[in-house]
Each structure stands twice: as structure tokens, then as C-alpha cells.
């Protein structure tokens, strides 16, 4: 895997050194790295990383709260499910950037517009995953619990939620990725700070090294959280639930 990445980097270096395109549209890896270091030195990179990540975290928590609640309602009620499912499936076909114009019209130039884009990008996927998780709980789990005297709220918290957890976590992981798309899309069009802003600033300055460098930073942060946090949790749950075999030892 590392060798493959190194090879890819080498290929990039060779192609850019052929100078088929001017360096302001196709930078070399070394130019890109240099530009990232400059951005970090002059103090414009870190505040933007921080701004994007903080927006993402807030927006994601909001989105998960809404999405999972709606999803549980869908999982429990066939009426709610049949009403919302086709709507959500439709909404999911919209790229997150498509939410930006309406967000600006609705919320103006504040951060509220960015949160709106994050929520609209990621909420539906989490709702559908939660709804499927709850609707697909094996009925004998619920029967066994009820014949052991579990009812009402305890049936939801002690049985239904843990039983639906693998699907819910998969939904949260997907929601995180979609929300991250949303942040960058929104910042690209409207913002004076953030990774999306640095992207569009780079384009305006004909600075391809900055554009490519920031793209790499976006990928890196997205991957880091996905791999380190969500995939880890998801894997733990799948092993525990007997859905996957444990290869790492526990």
C-alpha cells in the first residue's frame, strides 16, 4: 500500500516535470508540499483547518441528532416510514453543493447556512440507516425480551437500540463523509475562512499548488476520522455482534 502511494507520487513528479502543462495548473508534489508548509507558516492553514473541523463537528452532531431521531420514528412507524423514505431517497440524489444556493437565500451569509448544508447533506442517510436498523431487528429478540418481562422504554433502550446499533453506526459513518462534503461545498462558495475558502482562494490566485495541497488536507482529515474513529467503532461492533470475524485479536 505504501509502495503503491510512493509510486503514484513518483508518477506525479515525472508527469509534472515533463512540463506538459504550466506549473500554475499542474504543480509538482514538491511545489505542493512547499506551498502547504508556507500556508502553515504564514498562519492561514491551521485556523482554516480548525474552522472547518469545528463546523463539521457541530453540524454533524446536529445532523445526527435530527437524523437518528427521525430514523427511529421511521423504524417504529410504518406511516412515518412510507411518508419520509421516498423523500429522503430523493434528497440523497442531490449533491451537497446543490444545497448551497438555497442555504444562502434562507440564512444569508452567516455560519447558519453552512450548518444547514451539513445537515441536509448527511441527515437523510443517517435517518434511513437507523430506520432500516430498527425495522430489521430480528423479531425473536423482541419476543425473548418481552417474555423476560421487558416492556416500554426498557424494550427500546435495552433491546431495540443495541440490536439496531450495527446499522446505525454504518449510517453515522456514511453521514460523517457526506457532512464533510457539505462543509467544503458550503465554504467553497461562501466563507472567509475554512478549507473550502482556501480552495477557492487558490483558484482565484491561479495557485494550483495551494488547491491541490488543500485537497490533500481535506482527504487526510476525512480519512483520519473515518479510519481512526468510525471504522474502528464499526469493526468492534461487527465483531462483537458476530457479523465479522476478529482478525486483530481482542
Amino acid at each position: 500500500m505504501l509502495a503503491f502511494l510512493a509510486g503514484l507520487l513518483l508518477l506525479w513528479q515525472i508527469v509534472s516535470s515533463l512540463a506538459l502543462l504550466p506549473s500554475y495548473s499542474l504543480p509538482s508534489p514538491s511545489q505542493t508540499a512547499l506551498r502547504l508548509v508556507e500556508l502553515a507558516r504564514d498562519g492561514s492553514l491551521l485556523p482554516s483547518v480548525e474552522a472547518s473541523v469545528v463546523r463539521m463537528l457541530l453540524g454533524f452532531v446536529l445532523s445526527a441528532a435530527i437524523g437518528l431521531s427521525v430514523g427511529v420514528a421511521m423504524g417504529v412507524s410504518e406511516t412515518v416510514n412510507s411518508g419520509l423514505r421516498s423523500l429522503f431517497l430523493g434528497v440523497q440524489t442531490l449533491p451537497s453543493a446543490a444545497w448551497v444556493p438555497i442555504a444562502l437565500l434562507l440564512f444569508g451569509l452567516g455560519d447558519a447556512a453552512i450548518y444547514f448544508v451539513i445537515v441536509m447533506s448527511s441527515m437523510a442517510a443517517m435517518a434511513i440507516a437507523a430506520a432500516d436498523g430498527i425495522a430489521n431487528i430480528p423479531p425473536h429478540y423482541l419476543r425473548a425480551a418481552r417474555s423476560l418481562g421487558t416492556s416500554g422504554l426498557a424494550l427500546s433502550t435495552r433491546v431495540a437500540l443495541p440490536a439496531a446499533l450495527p446499522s446505525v453506526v454504518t449510517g453515522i459513518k456514511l453521514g460523517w463523509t457526506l457532512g464533510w462534503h457539505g462543509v467544503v461545498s458550503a465554504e467553497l462558495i461562501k466563507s472567509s475562512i475554512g478549507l473550502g475558502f482556501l480552495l477557492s482562494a487558490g483558484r482565484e490566485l491561479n495557485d494550483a499548488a495551494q488547491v491541490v495541497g488543500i485537497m490533500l488536507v481535506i482527504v487526510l482529515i476525512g480519512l483520519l476520522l473515518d479510519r481512526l474513529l468510525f471504522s474502528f467503532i464499526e469493526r468492534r461492533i461487527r465483531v462483537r455482534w458476530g457479523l465479522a470475524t476478529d482478525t486483530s485479536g481482542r
Partner: protein
Amino acid sequence: MTAVPLVGADNAPSRITLRGTFKRFVTPRAWVDALGPLDLEVAAGEFVVLVGPSGCGKTTLLNLVAGFEAPSGGSVEVDGETVTGPGPDRAMIFQEPALFPWLDVEDNVAFGLRQHGQLSASDRRAVAAEYLRLVHLEGFARAFVHELSGGMKQRAALARALAPRPRVLLCDEPFGSLDALTRERLYAELQELHAATRRTTLFVTHNTREAACLADRVVVLSPRPARIATVRRVELPRPRDFYDPRVSELAGAILADLRGAPAATGATRLA
């Protein structure tokens, strides 16, 4: 049996009474009569096995006693009280062990004990450990569910059902998907458990030898809608061996009942 403070140790086993009990399933386009009307009385502490052709409504009968479904007519009573819904006095085990994969084996067994508010966490653990010992799973308290074999899962499910000392144990073909060797061991263990706990047991199967091996009384049901075809009291001494010739003979007689031909005594010896 044990020094552990058993939950509801004063819970006497219950008497189950079905009178004119009838169940019809209605769908928008059709209806199906699944059961009865039939009368059945199960004495406190008795082990009754229901045998019937597949799809005859055996499971429906269990579901009515468990309270998962309501009868369309007649009554279902436990100790003279009409069943209105599921409750911890009537534990049920299924063909799928239905253990919760998010809990380890001990927490599964202790699950039903949470409803008994007076029990501390350490008491719950002690009771769970006691029942794990009873089903020969004492080394597996901290195991994940998926690490158990099919037979071990069903044992754990049995321990989970019995730990809160239900008055009634309902078994819906619990050994149906196990291999023959495992099943035979579990017949012996279930007889031991019944002798130790004396829970009133309603056990559904279509395996006539299983019925002959386990039952105080075998109730043979007719094809749908299930009615009582024959009743056989089984007086064979316990514990019974699955390959005891008297068990085989009785199994043959039950099979004959199932086929609708009354068996002449001694005429259905299996080779």
C-alpha cells in the same frame, strides 16, 4: 438445590387452562383458522409436549399462552387469571436461541433478573453463575454469543429463561436446528433441569421420539385448525434414555396417532 438467593424462589409452578380456545388470523383478503376450539389443562409442574403436523397451529398455541397473541374466542388462563400479554412469569425459548449479541453470556442469563428490582448487581451475577453451572456453561460467562456452538447457545437461552424462576416455561421446537448428538445430550439435561426446577413446561415439537423422551403427557394435535387428537400419559421412569426401546415404542405409537390411525397396542414396535 443451591445456596444462591434465587429470584422468586417462592414462585410455585402454574396451572395452565385453555377453554374453548380458538384462533383465527384475518388478513385483508382472507382468514385462516389456526387453532381450535380446544380445551387443555396443564397441571402445575407438569411437562406437556404438543406434537402435530407442521403448520397445524402448535406455535400459535404457545404464543397464546405466552401472551404474544390474543385468542379470537375462548380463554387462556394461568392460575385462573386470563392472559393479557407477555410477562416474566411465562418464559419462552425458541428454535433460534435469540441471545443478545451485545451482551456476553452471563449478562444474557442475567437479563431477565433486571426486572426484579430487589436484586443487587452482585446477586444477579451469582444467580446467573448458578444457572450457567446448571446448564454446564460455567467457563463461558464472559464469552461472546457468537463464540458458542449451537447447542451451547440453546443451553444459555434455557438458563436465561429459567433464571428469573418463571412459573411456566414455553419451548417452541428449541432443539429443531441442532445436530442429533447435541440434541440427545440436551434431552438428558432438560430432564435434569425439569427435575431440579419443576417449572410447568409446554414443549412443542414434531419429533415423536423427542416427545416420548421428555413428556409427562403427550398431546397430539390434528392438522390445522389444531384440535386435540389423542392424549397419552407417559409413565416411563426418568431420566429416560433417547434410545430406550420403550421410548421408541411410544414414539411409534405417537407417530401412528399423528397419521390418524389409532395404534393397536404393541403393533407399532419400531425395528
